[in-house]
């Protein structure tokens, strides 16, 4: 059974139209991450939560926001998607053993 679930798997939006991607976890992990991965590139960390403490990476654009209403859920909001924001967005949780557990990703297309 999937432990980190991302919805939707595929999202198509228009240039400038806000998008929300969701992530839920059944692992009860304190830490959740959002990564952005573009083709043939390394996943790039956007931000992470330690419980409710939000940690933004210095180079994450202001266009990207996140919410974590409870331990199980985390959302990625892209306020005004541009063509350059088309990517796979990966949610992950952090186990005490050190590895991250990833969801299957949400692929965003911007028209």
């Amino acid at each position, binding site marked *: 059974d999937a432990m*980190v679930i*991302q919805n939707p798997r595929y999202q198509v939006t228009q240039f400038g139209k806000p998008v929300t991607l969701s992530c839920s976890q059944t692992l009860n992990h304190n*830490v959740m*991450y959002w990564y952005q991965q573009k083709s*043939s*590139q*390394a*996943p*790039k*960390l956007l931000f*992470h939560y*330690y419980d409710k403490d939000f*940690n933004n990476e210095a180079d994450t654009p202001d266009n990207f926001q996140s919410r974590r209403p409870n331990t199980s859920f985390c959302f990625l909001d892209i306020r005004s998607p541009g063509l350059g924001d088309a990517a796979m967005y*990966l949610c*992950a949780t*952090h186990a005490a*053993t*050190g*590895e*991250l*557990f*990833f*969801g*299957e*990703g949400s*692929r965003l297309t911007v028209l």
Partner: protein
Amino acid sequence: DQQVKQNSPSLSVQEGRISILNCDYTNSMFDYFLWYKKYPAEGPTFLISISSIKDKNEDGRFTVFLNKSAKHLSLHIVPSQPGDSAVYFCAVRIYNQGGKLIFGQGTELSVKP
């Protein structure tokens, strides 16, 4: 400046032979090293890891080697199977930064029957 580099974007290996995937890093503050495997249209899945206090960790067909003096990490798969064909990412964790991982660019492994 890339702190984690996988210099080979692709690797092709015959079924049954050994696959060796390499990863170089620059920061001696990394304390934990991991390999992830990714199939198309799926998220990365954890494969194997090694702590900085060890130089080898083995799990079935997968062995990870860590050479701290050379700041080099490698993943050996033996024997390679066609189902191993995927993109492999190495990832490193910075000590005392809340578990944040930095990923390499990935190496696409193709295992031919």
